[in-house]
């Protein structure tokens, strides 16, 4: 009898709960079903009037039923809560712009510089810095460019008023002998920095730009090593598929001298306007360090050998990001800077 009554109550609750619409109705139902005045509570209260054996059996049954009922109510409460939140009413226009977050931008030259430095750092190169204002010795003579040499004509030089033999360095190579004076081979080093040329500015010419020289020297560092280092750098910078080639060139501070080209990324070597129809783009000048440079640094002639090269950071940045006006770099214009 009692067992059936308990079962009925439970079934009744399961049925009624499906019709419940809100938490008020749910709490009412809960009160009616298992509250103080409910039939179920009456059964529980009346348990004490039963025989010991019945009390044990029915009591157990009633308790199990109660905990099941409580769980049913908890579940129903969760469902009602979930349903009660009206998403539609709070719907927003997700296309409205996000709140402006102030973000800073590193200059593109800094970013390019960092990228190049990191590639060489992974290959064990250290970074050395030189001076922006230099002597003729470090900028020219030490690099096998004597006074009155035509090579000096190729680099229009800013000079300082009333100061003999002082200039704004025309290339970061001016740091080479300075570094060698303080270090002995074997070494691997890159030397980044700002350089100056006294030439009129236009979309492709600037009097202030950025370079990075590199050197590796030791007892047997070879041209073959040079090619592999530069090839590796270009592959890491422009992408694995890039093709490179090495051909002869001339620079006073290297002998032999090389020019390293990479196959035009636009036409894949077929020839287009970007590569002036040749299929190749000249990218890194360099060569085996001229013994004259070692001697300038105070090393004995032919004791060491190694390579030196020069990377045009500004040019790399322009090529990689398709920038067609070199003057933008020093414009301070945030419309440019904030693009990167």
């Amino acid at each position, binding site marked *: 009898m009692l067992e059936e009554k308990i079962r009925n109550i439970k079934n009744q609750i399961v049925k009624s709960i499906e019709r419940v619409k809100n938490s008020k109705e749910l709490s009412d139902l809960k009160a009616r079903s298992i509250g103080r005045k409910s039939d179920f509570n009456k059964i529980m209260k009346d348990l004490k009037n039963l025989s010991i054996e019945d009390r044990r059996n029915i009591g157990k049954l009633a308790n199990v039923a109660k905990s099941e009922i409580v769980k049913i109510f908890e579940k129903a409460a969760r469902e009602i809560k979930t349903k009660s939140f009206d998403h539609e009413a709070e719907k927003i226009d997700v296309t409205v712009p996000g709140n402006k977050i102030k973000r800073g931008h590193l200059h593109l030259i800094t970013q390019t510089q960092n990228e190049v430095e990191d590639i060489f750092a992974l290959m064990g190169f250290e970074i050395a810095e030189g001076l922006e204002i230099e002597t003729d010795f470090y900028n020219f003579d030490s690099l096998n460019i004597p006074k*009155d040499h035509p090579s000096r004509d190729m680099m229009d030089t800013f000079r300082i008023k009333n100061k003999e033999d002082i200039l704004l360095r025309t290339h970061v190579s001016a740091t080479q002998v300075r570094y060698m004076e303080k270090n002995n081979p074997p070494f691997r080093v890159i030397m980044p920095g700002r350089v100056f040329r006294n030439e009129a500015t236009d979309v492709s010419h600037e009097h202030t730009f950025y370079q990075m020289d590199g050197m590796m020297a030791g007892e047997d560092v070879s041209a073959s090593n040079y090619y592999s280092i530069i090839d590796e750098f270009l592959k890491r910078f422009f992408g694995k598929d890039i093709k490179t080639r090495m051909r002869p*060139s001339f620079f006073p501070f290297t002998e032999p001298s090389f020019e390293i080209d990479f196959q035009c990324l636009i036409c894949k070597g077929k020839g287009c306007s970007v590569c002036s129809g040749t299929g190749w783009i000249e990218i890194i000048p360099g060569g*085996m360090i001229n013994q004259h440079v070692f001697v300038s640094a105070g090393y004995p002639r032919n004791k060491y050998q190694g390579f030196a090269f020069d990377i045009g950071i500004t040019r790399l940045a322009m090529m990689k990001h398709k920038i067609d006006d070199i003057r933008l770099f020093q414009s301070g214009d945030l419309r440019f*800077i904030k693009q990167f």
Partner: protein
Amino acid sequence: MKYSYDWLKKISGTTKSPQQLADLLTMSAFEVEGIEKIKKDTFIDIDVLANRGHDALSHVGMAREIAALEGKKLKYDFPKLVSKKSGQLKVEIKDNDLCSRYIGVMIENVEIKDSPQWMKDLFEVYGINSINNIVDATNYVMLELGQPMHAFDVDKLTTNNQKLTTIAVRRAKSKEKIKLLDGDEKELSKNDLVIADSSKALAIAGIKGGEDAGITNNTKTIILESANFNATNIRKSRTRLGLKTDSSDRFEKEIDPNLTEIAMARLIELLGGKVIDVVDNYPNKVSPWKISLDLNYVNKLLGENIPSKEVIKILNSLELKTTPHLYPPLSKGRKKGGVVTIEIPTFRIDLKTQEDLIEEIGRIYGYENISSQMPVAHVKPANVNENRLFEREVKNILAGNGFSEVYNYSFYSARDAGLAQLGSIKHLELENPMNPDQEWLRISLIPNILKNVRENLKNFDEFNIFEIGKVYWPNKSVLPEEKNILVGAVVIKTKKSKKATEFYTAKGYIDASLQKLGISDHYYDDFNASPVDTFTPTPKGNGSKTLVRGFITLWHQGRSAEIKIKRGGKEIGYVGEINPLILTELDIHQRVAMFEIDMTKLKEVSESEMEYKPISKYPTIERDISMIANENVRVDDILANLQAFGGNLVLDVDLFDIYDFENNTSSYAFHIIFGADDRTLQSEEVDKLMKKITSNLEKDLGVKIRK
């Protein structure tokens, strides 16, 4: 230089097409810049390298290069100079340093006529005017052999002796004048070399001929010149005179004095006529020289294994004579190594060292055939460049805080400096500036940043920018002192209700950035201009802490501070508003705050490692206190007072509200956090502390605590 393909083909014997030839040259000798069909011929534009101008700027020279690359023999018969002595011509070289050889040849009964059409067509490609057969022949020989030449009309020369014509190679007299072939007149100096008769200069040696002795249709007897002039002097003269000619281009690249003879023989061959005298004034004959080449070094430098036999073959293809047998000889089964002595022909002036020869071997062997091998090096981690790393960190922190990085020129104008009140400080000046706007080398980044602010205000109303760069302070040593300086600028939309928002915003950015750099003991001291040091100083006279009126300073004297570090009281930079009067001058009509920090000093005080401080296990108690203070009470005083009487139990004090009243008093509200690291603080203890704090604030600073 442009080269005629047909001509090159004839002399070199190549069977390659123009494109194939271009590819070969680009990869093994010189870059080809273009190929162009002109009339029946094709011209290849070859960019001859600077060290090969002496031999390769001619068709024979280029053909010789092609023959070497193809391993062929040159098909050119070098003519021999006839000898003829009649005593009618005399050549006097007054300065052998400037002229190492002069061959003069007198020819009579020359017929003056037009050149054939093919030669006129050829000259058109080179922009050379066809004049007559004599002048054209000298130019033709220059294109063929690379030797510039000249011809004089003997009848126009002044001679003291009817039977003897004397040609002098001498320095020009000071202010000596010469009328050139094109009618232009030049005034010469003692550093210019001239060819002269007994009365006047006939030509500027190696640069351009004069009008007086020029060949005309009436010319009967001529003197031909083939000479060798000092390269450096030619270069200096032509630069000074502003005369760049085909002739000076070649002479300034230093050409072989032995070429003069071949060229003269060729010219005579072309002209015909009766040779009546040949004078060769060549006091110091240049002979081939020898270089010992270590064959092991060849492969060590190139990183390749080229057999000795092939090395010898390459050298021979370049017409370099190797001693007949190597030491030790190759025949004894040895394929590599050894030393070989090489004789360098005088036309290869550029070959002076072993490395020069290794370059020749490498490029003819083919750099594309050299395998790519990563260097073998000891695993020695690269040294870290601390300065560079630090600079990168600072840049990243600033960018993270919303600052964009600008790069400016290292120069500004005297006017820019003046506007920023830096005009009275000694600057380095450029001797040859691009324009007057870029005449002075910067001692401060601020003038250019101010321009950035003005320009960017046209497109943005709120931004933060910074630059890290070198400034150049003149000093007593040879080179100036280069200092690495950071300048930041804060531009915000002006909110009139808040006082000095720009200043406090800039200060906030500094606090946040320094904290990230591990600096916790910095403070801001009243502006106290020091003598000229790292920073942009104000004009002298402001040594005291009182405000100076009556002259303009770069910084707003009431709204600027020195950034100092407690350890050693070190000053690392400034923060402040830029003087609004200066901003107005620059057409900036709002307040701008900036900070200027010496990167070297900043690095010295930054800590790379930050140490963890245990987080208290005990709850904290928070209290607010607000007060009204008059204008001479500074927040720093209140904070110091609070800390002094609150002691260790005051964990943090936060100023959360300021209000300035019209009567020059201000209201401040602080939020104080109390806590102990060894127990739970009781409310009563904090109440007691608060009482102590309030009474001391009232007593010491005269503030009125708002209840």
